[in-house]
């Protein structure tokens, strides 16, 4: 069993979404999860990439264990951010989970082609959303062996 004996660690999540209502809802859902986690938010591509690369004001921020990415965003959209992460040798090991309302075949296919690690559709029902957030936290925070941080 991985990490079962180690003290519970806090799953660092970077949520990239442009909609404050969605951000708060997602935050709320993850707050209720039984697996400890911390959700950081980035509302556009620049902030997100700065956070991931830990530059500027994010120099002291933790390297996220998981990225939750919305696809449809104004300006540089989720697909481009995904491509940017997966093209950067420093960042490509960070798991990226798409969290969006779209379930169009082209979006799903495109995301996996850009090396997304999972594709989640935001549930319409709130209770399902809570359940999903809990599952995501448990899965990535408890069962998944995440890539080691400082290995070249």
């Amino acid at each position, binding site marked *: 069993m991985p990490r079962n004996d180690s003290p519970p660690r806090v799953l660092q999540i970077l949520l990239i979404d442009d*909609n404050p209502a*969605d951000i708060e*809802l997602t935050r709320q859902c993850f707050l209720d999860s039984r697996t400890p986690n911390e959700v950081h938010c980035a509302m556009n591509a620049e902030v997100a990439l700065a956070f991931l690369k830990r530059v500027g004001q994010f120099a002291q921020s933790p390297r996220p264990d998981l990225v939750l990415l919305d696809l449809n965003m104004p300006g540089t959209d989720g697909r481009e951010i995904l491509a940017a992460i997966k093209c950067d040798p420093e960042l490509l090991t960070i798991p990226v989970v798409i969290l969006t*309302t779209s379930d169009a075949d082209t979006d799903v296919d495109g995301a996996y082609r850009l090396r997304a690690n999972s594709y989640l559709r*935001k549930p*319409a*029902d*709130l209770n399902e959303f809570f359940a999903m957030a809990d599952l995501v936290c448990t899965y990535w925070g408890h069962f998944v062996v995440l890539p080691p941080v400082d290995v070249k």
Partner: protein
Amino acid sequence: MSRPAVLNSSPTPWEKLKQRTMLSRWPRLNRRFSWASLLVATAIFLVDGLLPASGAITMLYVLPTTLALSSRRQESLIQTGLICSAFIVLGFFLGTPLVSAADELTQRGCALVALGLISWVGWQLAESVEAAQQLRVDSCLRQVAEEAATFFRSMVDQVPIGVSRTDLSGRFVFVNEAFCRMFDASVDDLLGRTAAEIVPMPLAEETAAEECRVVEADETLERIERVGGGDREQFVKVIRAPVKDGLGQIIGVQSVWLNVTELKRSEQSLERHAQNLERSNVGLQQFAYVASHDLQEPLRAVSNYCQLFEKHYAHQLDERGLRWLEFAVNGSQRMQTLVRDLLAYARIDNKSRTWFTVDSRVPCLLALENLSTVITETHAKVTVGKLPVVWADAVQLEALFQNLVSNAVKFRGDRTPQISITAEKKEDCWQFAVRDNGIGIKPEFHDRVFEIFKRLQTSDKYDGTGIGLAICKRIVERFSGTIWVESQPESGSTFYFTLPRTPDCPEPDHASQ
């Protein structure tokens, strides 16, 4: 006779010429005169030689010579003249003279002189007749040629098709009126000029190049050219052919200019309409798709936050507040369903248009399997008859069966639903029927049930958005079929739809319960 009278009665120019110069009658008549003169001359010679006669008889030779003269043929005149002269001389030696040799000689000499005189006069006469004849033929020929030219000219000028001919240097040697009108110029303006001098540059270059091609390839070429610009823009179909002289040498290019502007315009407007329609169809599809996608976001927020609010603050609200909140939650959830259904409807056309041969039994059974819970719950009896192989898409066919059967179950009324699915072979399609024993539909609603979001029942009695049959209609129409319903209230409904038959579809050979 179906041929027009004009064709029968109108003589050819050659016939006209023959009539006017009477060439046909002349040779026969002349030959008769020639033969007659020879006969008469021989007869006189026989009398002169065999019977005792004076030399004066030789004066009779004037007769055949005059006859020969009538023939108006110089050769006949010379012939007769020479023969008669020979007979006169021969008669002197053969005949039995009645008078003295000197008298005889004098008489025959006089006859010879007379013959000579007549021949000379006749020669002159024939000469002038020949000349007059030639003059007459010439003028007739000229007249016929002129008539033919006028005939040709008026015909060519009357046709609404431009006709032109250019020599090898590209200069116009012939143009008709329609051609002049096309380029807004007179015949005099055009003759002797090249295309480059009368038409704008790109067309002139194309024309010259095309004419070169015609000459080089030695064949008829066809192309559509644009003449003029702006309001006066015309599309002209130009057919160019090489013109050859008697030796087969190409001496120019002959072109026919057919104004196809109207045709081209209607073609263009048809194309434009088709494009607009295509665009508006694509736009409409995208609109429905994007609208329902984008509508979902704020709806989700409303619905989720209502629920979140309920979850966290329910204990602080009174009964009325809770009821209102419930209305808000229900409303937003209903809206979400509508939007989702609209999305499903819009997606039918977004799916690929690939058709396959599908054994319609497979999607039908899959649809029944999807509905197994509700079928079991309602104790519905579903009978599936022989179903054929059709030309369609299996996934959409499954959705079609599922919508129809779920409707049949849903609108069952108080009875245990009995549903049968059958297919019947028609002339050019398969006609499917989904029959139930449900509440039925009033005739006035038979068409409207297929409208999008059309509901005939209140939502407290039957849930649903009313998208199901609209989706069915769209699917069936996508496969070039039609869908309709036959029903009476309280006596069940039968939904019929047709699907195209595969080019060589096998007969259905299975049935299941």
